[in-house]
């Protein structure tokens, strides 16, 4: 029999044991009687020689080897019984734990989904990303450098250790079937899906023969696009779509949830068919390159190999590739900047969990002390210390695991709303799920928590001296226990204060940031990206005319005050960062200062309400034929020219690509908080340069038009003009679209979404922590005061007034509170330093934050102490003394 069989057949085994021993006794008795001994005496002797039947049975049970489990089962049942006896205690403890564990589980689910899970492809460790690396490239502001198309092709040819695939980001307008729609396009190499080992949902991947210039125009659809435009219809395969007026035959559909580089694409086309001239330039690096290690190859081999290829390319093409190497590293999920936020929140919920544990520990301890006699009785009856510790720990395990189970249920309900409420889009949100990792984590923290809050009461119970406890009755209370109790309360207050102060810091940050001026007048401005009719993009002249037409039509829409075109917006993703210098004598680019460049139409200042400080802004006379001009902001004026007047001075912008890269400054405008209310002050690149769209040469028209947005200042509520604006701008072929529509007010408010979100969470955490700490204080004081009733009775009999007694209790509580506040202040200061690093826009912790939050804590804690104190004051000395 296995141990579990033995355990399951426990009753049968007990029965057999009984029968076996009985048989022995009867046989012995019979033989003795046969030997001439009187029956009564025979029975006595038989029993004598076997020994005490219960002891023999116990030893036999021990011999079974399942003793520990039987004991555990017994302890478990006992724990359930004792919890049921005190439903109030059980409810508070369970709720506390469920909250603590639930909150921690939610945060861990996020951390797990966003930061810990590998990419959702098979053997993700074998996937490799390839980047360019050179001294000229500023990784901090631009991220990792991609690879030139021709370099990518050379890598594909030369690499033995990697199977490489390339992805190029593009966009376009799909005009058929269905409503015209702006589409995210990915040009991909034909082997992308096989490298990722992703099989398509419908149809097939691209064929190698489709992946070169002149190949048949084929496309693969994104899942969402397939749903929207083909209603998930099978017949999509083989039908065609019109992308930028070109017909593509649909050959496949990607599976639902397929994402690469963090985003969802609408249409995939073969990379090899793209004949754009810039792809032939090794100085332009647009291709995302990834690969899979071939069987038996290691990452180190791939790194060495790519390094070598990069070096060869650098020697062969000195002009474009000099000083550039290629590096390979494991392909990792894109998680943006949420890492630090998630860590901050995980830290905060851990504090909540610790408070919960301290709370339950002090409650358990109070109970353990009141159970002292029971435990002493058990020791007297022969229970060992180890056995008692085990029993107490089993109780806390039962509590911890039930609380954990409740917590997991809470978390399961809370995760999706929480992800939905996350400010902006949580990267990898689709990966955030309650999986076995999370369950394991929840189980682990439940057990750890149980140990944390169970150990003190358990050891407290086992080390008491039984005969003293039995003799002393319920009256004895050792100073040690009081100190232990106080320690828990102090810990709770410390942790609660950290959360309160953190919430206070965030609150102040939000208040300060909200009061900041974004630099633009955000009221009544509507912004939207705009895709021109694909037909107009074919010829630059047509494109210019189309934009002129757009501005004219939009300005005639009722409710519209002024309108402008612009490529990048403040407080919205997307920017154009370039190096500039104030003379022709330029240092290497990585030593030069950078500025944000924005191409605008003349009415931009009026639409955005940006004040002009000096000189002039652009007008209709700034055209291709006039000298190239720019307008700078105050920040650039100050950094580049100091107190001098910048008007009439020139800036050299080497990567501009027109006007000889030298521009005359004609005006200075106010600084705009491009990076949002929170982020702008700390942003690396703040200086701003505006240049007129009208001066862009023909070569820029196509690309710039793809990135263009329109901004409209309205006389009425901005979204009110949207419908008529859409109607007015849809173009002759009804294939011009406005997308990503926002108001500037939304953008400004979104730029503080993270701070608001954190404040809300920390507010909730702090409130929960405060409530728990109050419950803890109340529980401990009520208990301690209860223990002191006889003492209070004597004091009152000797003449102490009610107020004096109450003050005695409050003083005890105040001592714990102040100790907690002192410790907590230090810890809060440290928490403030962490915030300073993680939350944009935070400033060093000011004393006033403490002045505002500490009294809240003290007041709440005193309130919680007041009830036990009042009860102490109402003690009737006569009754108290009679209890003695």
């Amino acid at each position, binding site marked *: 029999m296995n141990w579990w069989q033995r355990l399951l057949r426990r009753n049968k085994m007990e029965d*057999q044991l009984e*029968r*076996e*021993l009985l*048989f*022995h006794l*009867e*046989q*012995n008795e019979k033989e003795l009687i046969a030997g001439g001994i009187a029956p009564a005496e025979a029975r006595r002797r038989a029993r004598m*020689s*076997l*020994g*005490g039947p219960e*002891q*023999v049975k116990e*030893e*036999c049970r*021990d*011999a*079974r*080897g399942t003793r520990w489990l039987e004991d555990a089962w017994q302890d478990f049942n006992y724990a359930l019984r004792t919890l049921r006896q005190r439903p109030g205690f059980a409810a508070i403890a369970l709720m506390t734990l469920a909250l603590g564990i639930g909150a921690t589980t939610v945060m861990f689910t996020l951390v797990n989904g966003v930061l810990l899970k590998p990419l959702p492809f098979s053997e993700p460790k074998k996937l490799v990303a390839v980047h360019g690396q050179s001294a000229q490239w500023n990784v901090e502001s631009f991220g990792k450098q991609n690879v030139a198309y021709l370099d990518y092709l050379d890598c594909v040819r030369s690499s033995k250790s990697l199977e490489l695939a390339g992805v190029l980001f593009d966009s376009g307008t799909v005009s058929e079937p269905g409503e015209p729609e702006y589409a995210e396009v990915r040009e991909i190499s034909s082997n992308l899906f096989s490298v990722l080992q992703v099989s398509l949902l419908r149809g097939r991947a691209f064929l190698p023969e489709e992946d070169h210039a002149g190949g048949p125009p084929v496309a693969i659809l994104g899942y969402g696009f397939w749903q929207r435009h083909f209603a998930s219809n099978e017949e999509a395969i083989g039908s065609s779509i019109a992308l930028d007026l070109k017909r593509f035959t649909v050959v496949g559909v990607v599976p639902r949830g397929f994402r690469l580089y963090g985003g969802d694409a609408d249409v995939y086309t073969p990379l090899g068919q793209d004949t754009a001239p810039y792809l032939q330039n090794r100085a332009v690096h647009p291709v995302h390159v990834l690969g899979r290690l071939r069987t038996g190859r290691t990452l180190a081999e791939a790194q060495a190999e790519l390094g070598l290829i990069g070096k060869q390319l650098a020697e062969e093409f000195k002009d474009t590739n000099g000083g550039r190497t290629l590096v390979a590293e494991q392909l990792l999920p894109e998680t943006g900047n949420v890492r630090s936020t998630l860590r901050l929140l995980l830290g905060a919920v851990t504090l909540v969990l610790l408070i919960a544990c301290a709370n339950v520990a002090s409650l358990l301890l109070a109970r353990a002390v009141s159970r002292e006699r029971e435990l002493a009785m058990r020791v007297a009856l022969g229970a060992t210390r180890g056995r008692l510790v085990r029993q107490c720990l089993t109780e806390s395990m039962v509590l911890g695991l039930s609380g954990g189970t409740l917590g997991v249920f809470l978390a399961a309900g809370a995760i999706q709303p929480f992800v939905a409420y996350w400010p902006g889009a949580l990267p990898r949100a689709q990966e955030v799920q309650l999986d076995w990792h999370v369950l394991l984590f929840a189980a682990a923290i439940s057990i750890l928590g149980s140990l944390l809050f169970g150990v003190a009461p358990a050891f407290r119970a086992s080390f008491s001296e039984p005969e003293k406890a039995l003799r002393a009755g319920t009256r004895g209370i050792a100073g040690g226990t009081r100190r232990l109790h106080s320690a828990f309360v102090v810990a709770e207050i410390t942790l609660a204060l950290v959360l309160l102060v953190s919430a206070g810091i965030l609150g102040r940050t939000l208040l300060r940031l909200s009061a900041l001026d974004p630099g633009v007048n955000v009221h009544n401005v509507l912004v939207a990206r705009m895709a021109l009719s694909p037909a107009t993009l074919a010829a630059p002249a047509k494109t210019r005319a189309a934009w002129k037409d757009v501005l004219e039509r939009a300005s005639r829409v009722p409710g519209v005050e002024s309108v402008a075109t612009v490529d990048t917006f403040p407080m919205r993703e997307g920017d154009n960062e370039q190096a500039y210098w104030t003379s022709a004598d330029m240092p290497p680019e990585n030593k030069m200062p950078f500025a944000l460049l924005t191409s605008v139409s003349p009415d931009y200042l009026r639409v955005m309400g940006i004040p002009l400080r000096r000189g002039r802004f652009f007008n209709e006379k700034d055209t291709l034929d006039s000298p190239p001009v720019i307008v700078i902001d105050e920040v650039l004026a100050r950094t580049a020219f100091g107190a001098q007047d910048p008007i009439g001075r020139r800036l050299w912008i080497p990567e501009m690509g027109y006007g000889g890269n030298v521009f005359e400054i004609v005006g200075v405008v106010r600084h705009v908080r491009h990076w949002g209310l929170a982020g702008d002050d700390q942003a690396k690149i703040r200086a701003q340069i505006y240049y007129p769209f009208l001066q862009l040469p023909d070569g820029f028209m196509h690309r710039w038009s793809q990135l263009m947005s329109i901004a409209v200042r309205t006389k009425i509520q901005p979204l009110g003009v949207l419908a008529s604006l859409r109607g007015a701008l849809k173009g002759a072929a009804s294939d011009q679209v406005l997308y990503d529509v926002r108001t500037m007010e939304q953008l400004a408010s979104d730029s503080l979404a993270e701070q608001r979100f954190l404040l809300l969470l920390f507010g909730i955490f702090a409130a929960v922590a405060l409530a728990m700490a109050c419950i803890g204080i109340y529980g401990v004081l009520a208990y301690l005061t209860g223990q002191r009733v006889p003492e209070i009775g004597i004091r009152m009999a000797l003449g102490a007034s009610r107020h004096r007694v109450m003050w005695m209790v409050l003083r005890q509580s105040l001592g714990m509170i102040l100790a907690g506040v002192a410790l907590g202040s230090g810890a809060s200061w440290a928490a403030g330093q962490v915030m300073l690093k993680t939350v944009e826009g935070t400033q060093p912790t000011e004393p006033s934050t403490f002045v505002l939050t500490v009294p809240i804590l003290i007041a709440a804690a005193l309130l919680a102490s007041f009830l036990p104190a009042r009860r102490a004051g109402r003690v009737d000395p006569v009754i108290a003394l009679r209890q003695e």
Partner: protein
Amino acid sequence: MQPKSDLPQGTLDLLILKVVALGPVHGYAIAQRLEQVSRHVVQVPQGSLYPALHRLENRGLLAADWKETETGREAKFYKLTAKGRAQLETETASWERLTQAVALIMKLSEGGAE
């Protein structure tokens, strides 16, 4: 009757295995046999017999069955398993080595005393 000496530690298991090796037998009979064989020299505490039997059964050295005795009563009969037989052999061998060694030492020290 001479005073009986206690059983050396660990030998009870060996004795039980030896007795059970003769054929299926119930607990009471084992106790009887042990007492007879040891000719009342060695004290076999009956109380520790059953825990020992259960321990051996638990270790898979003994197997047990409920069968009728000659008198028609149901009793738990123990028999040796293959594992038990192997264990008996190794333990017998090591017991013999031990007793020889002890005997040798005793003789030596007697010699020394002379």
